[in-house]
């Protein structure tokens, strides 16, 4: 299959797409940002002018072809613009996670050899200054938000606004050079470099070309019929490939409007005000929203609660069928119509989903109850499966074929095959060029024919052709008796309970499974309040006997459901404990995209693991924690170990064969 297919006309780069959008959609809004309580908006014409001024300013500052420019900040139009401006200069934008602590940032800045760094605010500038004690190739630091920056030494520090002003003033000097550099960009030029969060080892820089980004955007936009009238809310980390595809690639390809929230805390309000038509969120966000809806319904009056329960039952029964256009009885249609007036409509409006035409979730498995809840409300929520190396899309669910346990069929232009060991492989026009400065890893991941190993184990369902993912291929192990150990499968079932935020199942190579559980402070805290249970801290609540009881009942429910699957019935949880602290990315226990890092957890809590297997009733431990500003402290706790009832697995031996 020829992936070096010729591009459509001369649309070979983001700047070229920008120029086309100015011609085609000139007066339509391209970006909005809420500031000072008002949505400020920029048309494509205004956007192009801003970006050009930035690019000219960067040239004036001495940005060279092939330089790497790190962009660290929250989702703001200026940050998206700066990435295009960097591309115009022939340099490579490298968006980074803004919540990374200085030492994590140091590794990435050092690895990509960034000469320029664009920071959102003082906090990011401080981190970069700290990093500069060790690495010395950073030439210029640029910041967007001026607050608190007055007293800094501005020798190599610039306000983005000043750079634009300088660019505008000096445009006659740099116009020609800038146009030359823009014209040099083609399908093979690097569009962006994104660092993978890395569940194991150091982050790797994934180099994505214009071909990767534009072809993927084109295919996926066609798949879901995205047009210039879509509205999206850009709130997920800019360093994540999904945000780059949705807020840059697809937005530039389709010409739709990207809306940036006022601050991370106002995201829900902003979502409601914008009412996006195209929406993406990881399962966690849907879970949090559902939890908060349920908590508020618990606190609502009797009448409202009854109305909600009655019509949600109707929605659960017929909602998904109506959404998929399957036949339902006239009476049910009428009931659903009433429910829409009383419950679903207002609820969707409150959640900001009134206008969602296409919604996606990915990254982790989503609980069937959660998934069905949104779909039954009439929200077209679908799943996709992807990764940074694929420019997101590997498989996705077409309209009308949506289920919670599959991730859909291969996306347009993507080939997928299953390896002998069950691992999923793919190749596509979105397949990354290479890992930056890491040919070994590149060769390990991508073979000569362009097939990329995903590291996930999965299989295609025979009747539907949909892909199902079981677990990370390397996490799938064997129990002592040889039966299959797939921790994520069980963890996901646990996490579908609102009380459980995170779970880590242990047991690879052992005779039985155990688990660490993190409670969800919002849900459990609210429950505690309603039941008059006083608590002073997370730790105290997590250790409360009644909380442990509740969690045990959840674990036992999960055991029942796991026992039904003959292949995985060995993964029932015999014992568990509720951790005294939340697993946190700052402590290295989760990745920045909140995936569990098993090795680090196993190492850090080896005393707890030992206690889970040696039969003791309680265990005392001390754990190091990292605060948001990078300082370290420690928590001491005594944890209770709880036994859970497991179901008999008489047919286990058979299944293992």
């Amino acid at each position, binding site marked *: 299959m020829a992936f070096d297919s010729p591009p459509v006309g001369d649309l070979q780069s983001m700047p070229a797409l920008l120029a086309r959008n100015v011609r085609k959609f000139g007066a339509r809004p391209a970006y909005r940002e809420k500031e000072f*309580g008002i949505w400020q908006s920029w048309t494509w014409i205004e956007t192009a002018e801003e970006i050009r001024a930035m690019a000219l300013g960067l040239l004036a500052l001495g940005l060279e072809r092939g330089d790497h420019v790190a962009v660290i900040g929250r989702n703001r139009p200026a940050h998206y613009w700066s990435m295009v401006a960097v591309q115009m200069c022939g340099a490579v934008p490298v968006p980074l996670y803004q919540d990374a602590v200085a030492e994590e940032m140091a590794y990435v800045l050092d690895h990509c050899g960034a000469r320029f760094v664009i920071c959102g605010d003082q906090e990011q500038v401080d981190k970069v200054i700290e990093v500069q004690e060790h690495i010395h190739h950073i030439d210029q630091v640029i910041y967007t938000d001026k607050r*608190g920056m007055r007293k800094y030494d501005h020798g190599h520090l610039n306000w983005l606004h000043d750079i634009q002003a300088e660019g505008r003033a000096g445009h006659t000097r740099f116009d020609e050079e800038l146009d030359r550099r823009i014209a040099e960009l083609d399908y093979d030029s690097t569009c962006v470099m994104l660092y993978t969060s890395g569940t194991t080892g150091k982050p790797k820089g994934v180099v994505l070309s214009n071909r990767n980004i534009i072809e993927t955007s084109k295919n996926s936009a066609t798949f879901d019929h995205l047009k210039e009238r879509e509205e999206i809310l850009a709130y997920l980390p800019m360093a994540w490939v999904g945000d780059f595809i949705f807020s840059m690639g697809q937005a530039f390809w389709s010409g739709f409007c990207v809306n940036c929230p006022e601050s991370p*805390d106002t995201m829900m309000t902003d979502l409601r005000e914008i009412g996006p038509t195209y929406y993406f969120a990881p399962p966690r966000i849907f879970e949090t929203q559902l939890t908060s809806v349920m908590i508020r319904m618990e606190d609502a009056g009797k009448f409202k609660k009854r109305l909600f329960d009655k019509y949600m039952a109707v929605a659960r029964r017929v909602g998904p069928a109506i959404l998929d256009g399957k036949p339902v009885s006239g009476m049910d249609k009428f009931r659903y119509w009433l429910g829409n007036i009383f419950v679903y409509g207002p609820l969707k409006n409150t959640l900001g989903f009134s206008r969602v035409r296409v919604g996606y979730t990915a990254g982790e498995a989503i609980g069937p109850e959660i998934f069905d809840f949104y779909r039954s409300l009439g929200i077209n929520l679908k799943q996709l499966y992807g990764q940074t190396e694929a420019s997101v899309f590997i498989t996705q669910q077409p309209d009308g074929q949506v289920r919670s346990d599959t991730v859909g069929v291969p996306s347009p232009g993507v080939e997928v095959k299953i390896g002998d060991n069950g691992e999923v492989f793919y190749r596509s026009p979105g397949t990354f060029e290479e890992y930056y400065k890491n040919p070994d890893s590149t060769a390990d991941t991508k073979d000569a024919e362009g097939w990329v190993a995903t590291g996930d184990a999965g299989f295609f369902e025979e009747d539907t052709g949909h892909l199902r993912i079981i677990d990370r291929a390397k996490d799938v192990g064997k129990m002592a008796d040889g039966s299959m150990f797939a921790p994520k499968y069980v963890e996901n079932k646990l996490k579908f309970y609102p009380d459980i935020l995170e779970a880590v199942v242990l047991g690879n190579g052992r005779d039985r499974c155990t688990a660490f559980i993190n409670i969800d402070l919002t849900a459990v805290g609210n429950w505690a309040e309603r039941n008059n249970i006083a608590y002073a801290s997370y730790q105290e609540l997590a250790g409360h006997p009644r909380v442990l009881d509740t969690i045990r009942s959840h674990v036992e429910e999960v055991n029942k459901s796991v026992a039904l699957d003959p292949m995985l019935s060995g993964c029932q949880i015999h014992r568990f404990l509720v951790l005294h602290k939340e697993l946190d990315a700052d402590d290295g226990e989760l990745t920045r995209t909140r995936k569990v890092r098993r090795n680090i957890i196993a190492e850090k809590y080896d005393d707890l693991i030992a206690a889970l297997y040696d039969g003791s009733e309680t265990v005392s431990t001390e754990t190091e924690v990292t605060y948001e500003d990078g300082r370290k402290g420690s928590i001491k706790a005594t944890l209770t170990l709880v036994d859970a009832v497991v179901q008999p697995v008489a047919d286990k031996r058979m299944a293992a064969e």
Partner: protein
Amino acid sequence: MNDMSQGNYTTADGRKIGSVLMEMKNITLRFGGVVAIKDISFDIHEGEIRAIIGPNGAGKSSMLNVISGFYVPSEGEVWFRGAKRPQMRPYQVAQQGIARTFQNIALFKGMSTLDNIMTGRMTMMKSGMAAQAMWWGKAEREESEHREAVEKIIDFLEIQAIRKTPVGRLPYGLQKRVELGRALAAEPKLLLLDEPMAGMNVEEKEDMSRFILDVNDEFGTTIALIEHDMGVVMDLSDRVVVMDYGKKIGDGTPDEVRNNQEVIDAYLGVSHD
């Protein structure tokens, strides 16, 4: 005339402190037979952060009430911006450019954050009550201008997410921040903070300290504050007045005050023969 003035000076972190903004001359305050403040003099320079500290019942809050015009001193003079201040009502003092927050939060609990901060601009609204009620012509324009100023404060204090939330529902630390916002809305020359950190946890204290420093830095607002948390006082303030039993027992930079024997005695206690 100005015998107490130390003139302009530069702080340890390099900020230029201007001339005397407010001067208290020999202030005595009596409630019947009780002497709350006894013959105290000190000054506040433009652009500085000035702390008033002392054990419980030392007369700190009374002092702040004298500055804000809530109490009228029995003896002594208050000089503000180079002129002796005549006896005034608190709202007149406010119009002069002095704003304050309260030890026990004094917000309108049922009103939103936005509306509460908006009330801070009351003294600046020119259109009459009828025009405002009709929301017509000049009043409408005026409200937009004030709203813009309030939105800048909301942005500054990072409370966008609670803009429309009734303040009664907010946690204590945020209510304190809203109160600071309301005081800032009056664009004061001198900002009085009565125990801005009382009852806060460490994280909230750090946030509040950051905002106080930022206010001083960004707007150049002179700040006088009362605070119990010694760590906070010593970190924040440029100069400190120490009071005990209504008398001034120390005045100077945090380091000077920390090493003052009389201050140490007042805080740690000494045996009386």
